[in-house]
């Protein structure tokens, strides 16, 4: 079948396909469990799509060896599941927090990496426009004239950055401040060792 030595992942670094897949899985889990939309990983997505289409083309050409082809096809299905689940959780968050996402995108500096891919940006803008048209047609035009606008930023709840998460530590960090929950407690610091798991805010 195809030869997998090194894959050029775009501008920064050379990664093996195995590393690419494990980074995709990590991004998938992070996106699933974090309360807000994380940074966009478009180069990761593109590389994985490239690998998948490459593998599928090979499979189309080589019809022999039923066992090999089915093993490759199973792996393609697994990777495709992770990729679509990742994109689906991003879209769900965009739908949930659309005005805040667009605001964040507008207010970032030019040099910063973007939060949304071009397609996601277009989706978010269309969603905003459609929601406005819908609200106008259904309710707002029947209201008295001075109530006919709605501020999307206030109308849609913003992501709760203070929610608790489970986390696993990849690099040792020291002196992380833990805020007190009640008035009687005082704040304290913890050190996070590599490989340990925690639950905190």
């Amino acid at each position, binding site marked *: 079948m195809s030869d997998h030595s090194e894959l050029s992942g775009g501008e920064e670094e050379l990664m093996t396909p195995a590393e690419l897949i494990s980074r995709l899985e990590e991004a998938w889990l992070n996106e699933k*469990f974090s309360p807000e939309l994380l940074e966009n990983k478009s180069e990761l997505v593109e590389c994985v799509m490239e690998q998948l289409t490459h593998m599928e083309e090979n499979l189309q050409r080589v019809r022999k060896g039923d*066992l090999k082809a089915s*093993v490759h096809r199973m792996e393609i299905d697994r*990777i495709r599941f992770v990729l679509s689940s990742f994109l689906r959780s991003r879209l769900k968050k965009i739908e949930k927090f659309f005005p805040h996402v667009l605001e964040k995108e507008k207010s970032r500096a030019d040099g910063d990496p973007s939060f949304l891919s071009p397609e996601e940006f277009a989706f978010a803008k269309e969603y905003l426009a459609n929601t406005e048209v819908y609200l106008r047609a259904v309710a707002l035009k029947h209201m008295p004239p001075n109530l006919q606008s709605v501020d999307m930023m*206030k109308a849609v*709840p913003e992501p709760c950055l*203070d929610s608790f998460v489970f986390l696993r530590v990849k690099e040792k960090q020291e002196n992380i401040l833990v*805020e007190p929950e*009640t008035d009687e407690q005082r704040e304290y610091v913890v050190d996070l060792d590599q490989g340990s798991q*925690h639950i905190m805010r």
Partner: protein
Amino acid sequence: MDPAEVEFLAEKEMVKIIPNFSLDKIYLIGGDLGPFNPGLPVEVPVWLALNLKQRQKCRIVPPEWMDTDKLEDIREQERKLDTFTPIPNPYYMELTKLLLNHAADNIPKADEIRTLVKDIWDTRMAKLRLSADSFISQQEAHAQLDNLTLMEINTTRSFLLDSLNYMYKLRSNLQPGRSKDY
């Protein structure tokens, strides 16, 4: 997160099989799988092992930790200590279920192993419930849970995190000038 997704992650673990067919090396995106020769053991991910077993093309070799003596020791250890003991494999529950469902004929004393793993699971879940209870009632802000597996965390994930979040919101609304819409 669904239990099915945890099982998906568990299926990436490697397990030894003994194929009864021969095939040269396959180059998967996630890594290479060595040449298959009948009668010689080879390591493959669990999803592939189960598929081959269902097509009756291999025999699965149980992992080293799946042994009644070792599991009995772990169970005794778990019952004695109040904290969570380290366990041999982070996906022990899913692997036991998958391997015993599909390959029980390749695993000696399958029923005993099933009972032992269930006992270990029950003990750990009871400890988890107790510690979650004390976490909430003492209103702690942080806990370290090193030896918990993903499946165990997953069972209480939605309940624990949601209740902690709601309590935090209720508490922060009590303090003046801090109420926000989420």
